[in-house]
């Protein structure tokens, strides 16, 4: 059985699981309502106490929306950060913290790092199975946008064909990220360092001309300015990786003339080649890692936090479910007189039961539907804020976990709604009729 389940495609598993969750509630409904037509009366009751009902629906909607939004947001964040790391197949750097290098190179959150030397770079670039090895040299910025030295190969690997203009062809040209603060045709002088501590005047007299703009990548690189690595070296008064009379840019570099680079992105000719390269450059004087794997480890580390969050989402849901139950019992008092009238003129108990249950179900279902919409809107809104702040494109869409949460909530509450319905038909008829 477990094997058969595992053999099903994930999408089918999700659909089946959602159906299994909602089935008990719907089944209860089918049994309660079979052969009866309580809806016209339910509609009348909903209209009668429209404000109380609206408040009740809103309460359910907000709680369902919170749960849904939380789940969608968490997944969106996870997927967004993973997508931003997608293009970074294999990174080679000087030994140290993989997380630090990943944050610096993938998410452009730089910190001081040891350098890969020219000789080491030459070895990496020349290794068998390497399609290209791009230096990634950060440290400068312009108006808060990171200025990163690299190669043409990396530019086209990262963002595909340019959205506008052409790639840099000399050490004084640059390509702007999709949302970088300089337009094509404009120019900029980089500041040394990042953030408030950046030294604006450090590179006085040097300017890059922007010749092209990349298409959006959904990563922090969209705010970056990409320049030839030779430019970065030159700006810092270092050798530029080539012979003195050679004004070419890009690899190969002359190892002795190359000042070094904090990280190298390695792209293999074949996907499987990455693993061989990773083990080859995992050694005393170098480290090699897949950012995707490091990210997965980080997400794994957060699993406890995530399960705590999910647990909290479920717990809130349970609490809300209980308040829904209590709320329904109070609502039943509101309609008690109408129910007593129905019983007095001979309505079967089953019918009265069905009226109360259908009334509850109408509130629960509209609350859940509204909550789903609310959760989606909230997740969208928060995603937009996160995207604006981190440049990691986060798109929170409704997915199966939310569908499962809501399906479970609906089933559970529809089941619980049987209780107030049962209590309603046990109320003293004549007393209710007199009120």
């Amino acid at each position, binding site marked *: 059985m477990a094997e058969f389940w595992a053999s099903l495609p994930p999408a089918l598993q999700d659909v089946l699981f959602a159906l299994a969750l909602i089935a008990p509630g719907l089944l209860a409904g089918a049994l309660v309502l079979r052969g009866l037509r*309580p809806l016209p*009366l339910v509609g*009348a009751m909903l209209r009668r106490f429209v404000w109380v009902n609206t408040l009740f629906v809103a309460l359910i909607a907000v709680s369902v929306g919170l749960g849904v939004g939380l789940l969608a947001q968490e997944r969106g964040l996870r997927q967004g950060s993973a997508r931003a790391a997608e293009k970074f197949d294999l990174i080679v750097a000087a030994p140290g913290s993989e997380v630090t290098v990943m944050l610096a190179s993938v998410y452009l959150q730089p910190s001081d790092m040891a350098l890969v030397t020219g000789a080491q770079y030459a070895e990496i670039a020349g290794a068998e199975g390497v399609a290209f090895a791009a230096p990634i040299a950060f440290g400068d910025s312009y108006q808060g946008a990171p200025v990163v030295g690299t190669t043409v190969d990396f530019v086209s690997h990262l963002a595909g064909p340019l959205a506008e203009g052409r790639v840099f062809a000399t050490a004084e040209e640059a390509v702007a990220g999709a949302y970088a603060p300089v337009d094509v045709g404009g120019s900029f002088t980089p500041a040394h360092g990042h953030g408030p501590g950046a030294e604006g005047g450090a590179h006085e007299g040097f300017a890059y001309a922007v010749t092209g703009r990349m298409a959006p990548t959904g990563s922090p690189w969209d705010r970056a300015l990409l320049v030839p690595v030779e430019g970065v070296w030159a700006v810092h008064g270092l050798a530029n990786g080539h012979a003195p009379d050679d004004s070419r840019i890009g690899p190969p570099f002359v190892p002795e003339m190359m000042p070094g680079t904090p990280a190298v992105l390695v792209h293999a000719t074949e996907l499987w080649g990455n693993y061989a390269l990773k083990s080859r450059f995992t050694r005393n004087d170098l480290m090699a890692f897949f950012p995707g794997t490091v990210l997965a480890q980080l997400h794994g580390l957060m699993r406890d936090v995530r399960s705590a969050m999910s647990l909290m989402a479920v717990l809130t849901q349970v609490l809300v479910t209980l308040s829904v139950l209590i709320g329904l019992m109070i609502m039943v008092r509101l309609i008690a007189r109408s129910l007593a*009238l*129905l019983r*007095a003129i001979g*309505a079967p*108990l089953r019918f009265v039961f069905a009226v109360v249950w259908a009334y509850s179900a109408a509130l629960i279902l509209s609350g859940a539907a509204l909550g789903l919409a609310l959760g989606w809107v909230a997740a969208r809104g928060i995603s937009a804020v996160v995207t604006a702040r981190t440049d990691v494109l986060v798109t929170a869409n409704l997915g199966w976990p939310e569908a499962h949460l809501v399906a479970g909530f609906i089933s559970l509450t529809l089941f619980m709604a049987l209780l107030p319905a049962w209590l309603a038909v046990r109320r003293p*008829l004549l007393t209710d009729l007199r009120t």
Partner: protein
Amino acid sequence: MTAPALHVENLRVTSREGRVLLDVPLLTLDAGQSLALRGASGAGKSTLLHVLSGLVRPSAGRVIWGAQDIAALTEDARARFRRETLGLIFQDCHLFEELSALGNAGLASAFAPKADRAPIRSAAAQWLAALGLGQAGSRAVDSFSGGERQRIAVARALAGSPPVILADEPTAALDRANADALGADLVRLAAEGGRTLITVTHDAGLAARMGRQITIADGKIVEDSDG
């Protein structure tokens, strides 16, 4: 369905505190008879009507309609008896404020067997028309006057063509002229259908239209026009 005869014996209703609210050793009523229940406020008229309709289960005794002792029935069976046999008109009408006049008059169609639903609804419309509310069927009931509401309640009681009608002060909220008109309507409609009609009333005019009058005091029958 022909009207069932009523046979009540050794009926006692005591309140939870042990006070005797009703004590009727014997009461019989032929099928198709009309009966007025009279008496001071608090005498027990409504209580008797509630027992006769199965809304209240007596502490002791039998309430036999036709061949059926409804005091011995389960609650659901009593509901079924009410829906099949009785048309009830309550002391304060009890309408579904959420529904239209027609919706109220045809309320029983909501839970009646499928085959009966359409007949109940068309009967409800006919009774409303007969009671002078034909034009206003779709209006919400909370916009009707007290007398109009009472007529809607009458239409509801009659819509299921019940063989027995139990009415609790159906004309209490009306002025003289309207009370007379509604009382006359009720008696005529009951007589035409060969229905049994029991009406609680303080209205001597309405009581006089009934074939028989009973007076209740302190839960006991103290006067019966049939001897």
